[in-house]
């Protein structure tokens, strides 16, 4: 049954590598879900804001990793 445990661990690892990175994505998506139902914005603006938040999370996470990792 060890392989079943490994598969479940592997499935979790598919989505979560850096915990803070995964959490930031989930928080941003939850905020956007709330924002789309409470704010009056054009679809294009919502699309751009959704993407911009995710891109910023990616930029912050990679630069944070780079800052603490000497080559």
């Amino acid at each position: 049954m060890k392989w079943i445990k490994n598969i479940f661990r592997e499935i979790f690892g598919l989505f979560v590598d850096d915990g803070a990175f995964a959490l930031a994505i989930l928080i941003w998506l939850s905020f956007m879900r709330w924002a789309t139902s409470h704010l009056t914005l054009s679809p294009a603006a919502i699309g751009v804001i959704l993407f911009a938040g995710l891109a910023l999370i990616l930029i912050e996470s990679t630069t944070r990793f780079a800052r603490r990792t000497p080559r």
Partner: protein
Amino acid sequence: MIIGWAHTGTSVVASFLASLVECVEALTVVLAVGSVRGWRSALIGSATAIGVLLVIVAALGTVLTHIPLRSIQLVIGTLLLLFGLRWLRKAILRSAGLIPLHDEQAAFAKNAESMRHFGNGHTAWDKIAFAATFHITMLEGTEVVFIVIAIGAGRTGTLFPASLGAVGALLVVIALGFILHRPLARVPENTFKFIVGVMLSAFGTFWVGEGMHLAWPAADWSILALIAAYLAIALVMVPLCRSRSQAVTSNP
């Protein structure tokens, strides 16, 4: 709903490249096991796992047709973003030289060595060879199944092109494995992961938007715009991460 080329084409390419990377990793272990312990049990183990994975895809595909599309798009889109952005993050860091590249030759040598520790395996039925190849094919195959489901479940009619991409990758890797009989070390794995990370992140953003009832401007063509935007950011991040890291080295 009619699906456009922008959707079908990107589904096939993303699924093909992602599956190719996973199949290459599985092939390395299957080759290591087969060359040390014999091919019969190694190939049966791998084939059995592929059979189990096909049943899972068929079952999940049927189940997903009974769930409202908006809910699927939101859940699958979120999972796809977690998965795709994680791949893209790692690919950027690998390209910047901050994480070592995956070495298929080293993986082959390590797996072959560990198989030798179990003694002579050239018997009619080798449980160790079967278990090892079944295990690796299930592990890597689970990722392929998720990618196919995630790309294909967001819209009616996209599961087939996504499956086609994955099956194509599997056949290419099997053919190369039979012809070459050695690990596919020259496959530009990180470049593929970089491209796939960009595409999956774009798909994830698109699905989540649709799940939130967002009517994307230009409909499916927004996927191509998202791919271009993620690619531009990722390409800028590689030298930026490299320079940040060098700054750390020079100012410890």
